[in-house]
C-alpha cells in the first residue's frame, strides 16, 4: 500500500506496475490513515472481535429458540437429553469466540505485519453480524464490499440468503413465489451495491486499470511469491501447456462446493458459512494466516461437537507443528541456503491437509450429531445389540 501511495505521488498509476494489487478504496482510506497504520490495524482487529461477539450472541439465541421449537414439535428422539444444548453452557461462547480471534497467534502476526487481510476479516465479520441480525440491506452491502476486496466472498451469498430466508420463515421450495421474490430482492441489493462500489473506485482514480490488476491478478495468479497456500509451487513447476487449464480448475475448486453444501446444509446456514469461509481461506489464490484466523475464531461455537470429532488431537498437533516449522524452513531456504524450496513446500502441503481434515472432521461431527438427535443416541440393531454408524 505504501508503494501504491508513493506511485500516486509520482504521478504514475499504481496499477501500471505489478506490485500493487489492492483496491482503490484501500488507497483512498490509507491516504489519510497511513501515519496511524498500527493503530488502524489494532482497531480493525478489535472491531472484528466485537462484531463476532455480537453475532454469536444473537446466533445462540436463534439456536436455542429453534431447539425449543423442535423439542415441542417432538422432532427429537427421546434419549438425546445429553445432546440438548442449555443456555448455561452457551453463555460464554461469544466471549470465547472473541478471545479466540484476538488471542490467536495468526491474528497477532497479521496485525504486526499490517496486512490488509485484517480489513477483509473486519468486513466479513460485519457481514456475518448483519446477516445474523437479519438486516438484508446491510448484509448485502458488506458482502459487496467483501467481494470487491477479494473475489471469493461471492460464495457467501448462498449461506446468507439461506439464513435470511429462514429468518423470514420463507420455505425453501423452488416453486414458492415468495422464495424467488426474496432471492431476487437480496440479489438486486447485492449487485447494486457492488456496482456502486466499483463505479466509486473508477471515479477515485479515473481509470478502469484496477480491474485487471485486482481481479485479473486474483484469478490468473501471475505472481508466484511463496505463501502458505498450494498454488505458488504448483504454477512454478507447471508445464506451460497446461497452465490455463489448471488455473481454471483451481479457481472452480473454490466456487463449486457452494451448491452441494447449500443443498446438504440448508437447515444450518451458519455452519454452511463457516465451512465456506474455511474453504475460501484454504483454496484462495493468495492465502494468508489472517484468513485462517477468521474461521478458527468460529470453533468455540461448535464446541458441543467435541465428542464426535475423530482426529482432533492429531490435527491440532499437525497445525501447531506446521505453523512452527513454516518460518524455520523459510529461513533455511531463502537466507541460509541450506534447504530447498521442497522443504517449505512440504510444510505447505501438510498445513493445508491439516486444515482440510479439520474442517471435514467438524462437518462429520455436525452431521453425526444431527443424526443422533433425530434417531436417538443408543442405536440398536435388529437383534438388540449395539450398532455402529457408518456413512454409506
Amino acid at each position, binding site marked *: 500500500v505504501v508503494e501504491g501511495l508513493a506511485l500516486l505521488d509520482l504521478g504514475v498509476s499504481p496499477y*501500471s506496475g505489478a506490485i500493487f494489487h489492492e483496491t482503490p478504496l484501500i488507497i483512498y482510506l490509507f491516504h489519510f490513515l497511513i501515519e496511524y497504520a498500527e493503530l488502524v490495524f489494532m482497531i480493525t482487529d478489535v472491531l472484528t472481535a466485537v462484531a463476532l461477539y455480537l453475532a454469536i450472541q444473537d446466533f445462540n439465541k436463534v439456536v436455542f429458540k429453534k431447539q425449543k421449537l423442535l423439542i415441542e414439535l417432538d422432532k427429537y428422539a427421546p434419549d438425546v437429553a445429553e445432546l440438548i444444548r442449555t443456555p448455561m453452557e452457551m453463555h460464554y461462547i461469544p466471549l470465547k469466540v472473541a478471545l479466540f480471534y484476538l488471542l490467536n497467534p495468526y491474528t497477532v502476526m497479521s496485525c504486526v505485519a499490517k496486512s490488509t487481510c485484517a480489513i477483509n476479516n473486519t468486513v466479513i465479520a460485519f457481514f456475518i453480524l448483519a446477516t445474523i441480525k437479519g438486516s438484508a440491506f446491510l448484509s448485502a452491502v458488506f458482502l459487496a464490499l467483501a467481494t470487491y476486496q477479494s473475489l471469493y466472498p461471492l460464495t457467501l451469498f448462498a449461506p446468507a440468503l439461506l439464513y435470511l430466508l429462514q429468518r423470514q420463515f420463507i420455505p425453501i421450495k423452488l416453486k414458492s413465489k415468495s422464495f424467488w421474490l426474496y432471492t431476487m430482492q437480496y440479489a438486486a441489493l447485492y449487485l447494486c451495491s457492488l456496482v456502486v462500489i466499483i463505479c466509486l473506485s473508477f471515479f477515485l482514480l479515473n481509470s478502469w486499470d484496477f480491474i485487471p490488476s485486482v481481479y485479473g491478478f486474483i484469478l490468473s495468479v501471475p505472481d508466484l511469491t511463496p505463501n502458505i497456500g498450494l498454488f505458488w509451487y*504448483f*504454477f512454478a513447476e507447471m508445464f506451460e501447456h497446461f497452465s490455463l487449464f489448471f488455473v481454471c480448475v483451481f479457481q472452480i475448486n473454490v466456487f463449486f462446493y457452494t451448491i452441494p453444501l447449500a443443498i446438504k446444509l440448508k437447515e444450518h446456514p451458519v455452519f454452511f458459512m463457516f465451512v465456506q469461509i474455511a474453504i475460501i481461506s484454504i483454496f484462495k489464490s493468495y492465502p494468508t494466516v489472517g484468513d485462517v484466523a477468521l474461521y478458527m475464531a468460529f470453533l468455540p461455537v461448535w464446541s458441543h461437537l467435541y465428542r464426535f470429532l475423530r482426529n482432533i488431537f492429531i490435527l491440532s498437533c499437525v497445525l501447531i507443528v506446521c505453523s512452527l516449522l513454516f518460518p524455520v524452513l523459510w529461513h533455511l*531456504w531463502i537466507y541460509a541456503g541450506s534447504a530447498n524450496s521442497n522443504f517449505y513446500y512440504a510444510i505447505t*502441503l501438510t498445513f493445508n491437509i491439516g486444515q482440510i*481434515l479439520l474442517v*471435514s472432521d467438524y462437518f462429520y461431527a455436525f452431521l453425526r450429531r444431527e443424526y443422533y438427535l433425530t434417531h436417538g443416541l443408543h442405536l440398536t440393531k435388529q437383534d438388540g445389540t449395539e450398532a455402529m454408524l457408518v456413512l454409506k
Partner: protein
Amino acid sequence: SNLWYLFLHSVDKAWKELSNILSGIFCASLNFIDSTNTVTPTASFKPLGLANGTDHHLLRYAVLPREVVCTENLTPWKKLLPCGSKAGLAVLLKAERLFHSSYHSQAVHIRPVCRDASCLAVSWELRQTLTVVFDTFSSGQGKKDWSLFKMFSRTLTDACPLASQSKVYVDISPKNKEKELLEVTPPPVSVHEAIVQGDKRTYAVYDLLSPSLFNTSRSLNVQLKWKRPQDSSELPTPVLHAQRYVSGYGLQTGEISTLIYNTHPYRAFPVILLETVPWYLRFYVHTLTIITKGKENKPSYIHYQPAQDRRRPHLLEMLIQLPANSVTKITIQFERALLKWTEYTPDPNHGFYVSSSVLSALVPSVIAMKDTDVEQSPLFTSLFPSSDGSSYFVRLYTEPLLVNLPTPDFSMPYNVICLTCTVVAVCYGSFYNLLTRTFHVEEPSRGGLAKRLANIIRKFRGVPPL
C-alpha cells in the same frame, strides 16, 4: 550489448525487425531483445546528427547484459570497413591479440549528416569505434613501454586505398609540464594539440597516406619508451565516475546502490541517470533515497515506469544535481520474484544479470575549447562531442550486476503436480463423502472369505471374532 534507435513511425514492429537484422549482421544475439528488456527513455538519449523535434515515444533502448563480445562479433564488424582487414589500420585487428586484453568494446553509430555546407541533401554517416585496453604493465615485465608489434603482433604496412584519411594519433601529453619524459619512435612528422574532455592534450600524428612515412622502412611500428621509471603512476581521476553494487543478504530482498562521484573542485552539474532493471527484481520506489554529503538530494525530474510481470522492465530516469567535489549515493530496495521453472537460464545458480545504468552528463571542462579547433579536427569532435566549448558530453555505463533469485527444484514437476492434486483430492473426497452419503446403522453381514480367514486367525490368537 546494447542497442538504441530513434524511429520515425510504427515502432514496435520495426524495432523487432531491426534487432533481428542487426543480430544477423553482427552475429550477436540481439534477437533476444524483446519487450522484456526494451524501454522507452524520455531524457537520456537524444538523436545524433540532424534531427527534427523528436517524440521520445519513438525511441527504444535495450540492453542484453549477459552477452559478451567475441571473435564472431569482430569479423562482421571488420567486414563493414572499406578495406576490410586487408589494408590500412584494420590489419592490426587480429582476434587472438585483441581478446587478450583487459577491456574490449565495439560500437557502430549511424547518424544523418549534411552532405555539404548548404545541407540540401542528407546522407548517412557510419562511425565504427573499437576500444581495447591492453595491460602492458603486467605482460611487459613491469615496464610501461609498448609498441604496435608487442600489442598486435603486427605492424602497419600501408594505408587503405579507399580511405581519404588514415592517421595514427599517439598521446604524448606531458604530465606536470615536464617534457622529455617519454620518447616515441619513429619520430612523428607532426604534432597535434587538442582539448579533449576538458584537458589539453598533445598527440603525435602518423599519416599513413603521406608518402614519406614508409620511406625508411617497409612497415611502421610505433614504439613508446619511458625515459625515467615512473614513481607514482596514478592516473588523474575523471571528473565524473560511478560505481554500482548490490547489497543485502538472503534471496528475498536486496538493495541496489549507485555511487556517483563528482571530482570537479568547484563546479556542480546535473546528471541524468537511467536505470533499467528486469521485472523479476521488484522495485519499491518508496524506498528510493538519494543522499549527497549526508543530506537528502531531491532530483529535479523523475520518470518512473514500473515493470509489468513478463512484459516490461523497470525504467527509472532521474535528473540529479551533483554538487562540486561530492559523492552521491542512490539506493533503492527490491524484492526477488520466484519465476516459473521454464524461465530460468540453464545455470540458474549463476544468477541473473542486471544491465548497467547509463549516466549522461554535460561535464564542465577545465579548459575551454575554441571554435577553430572544432573545424580543424572533425574526428576529435565526433569522438568527444561538445555543444559549446565550456563542457563536453559524457555517457557513462556502470557495471552490470549479478543477482541470485530463489529457485524451485527443477527435478520436481511431476511430483509437485501429483502431490498438490492429491491434497485437493483429499478435500474433494472428504467433502464428497460427507455430502452424498448419509448415516446408516450397520447391518451385520455374513462376511466374505477374508473375514472368515481373519476370524480363524483370531480364534487362534484368542481374540474375539470380527
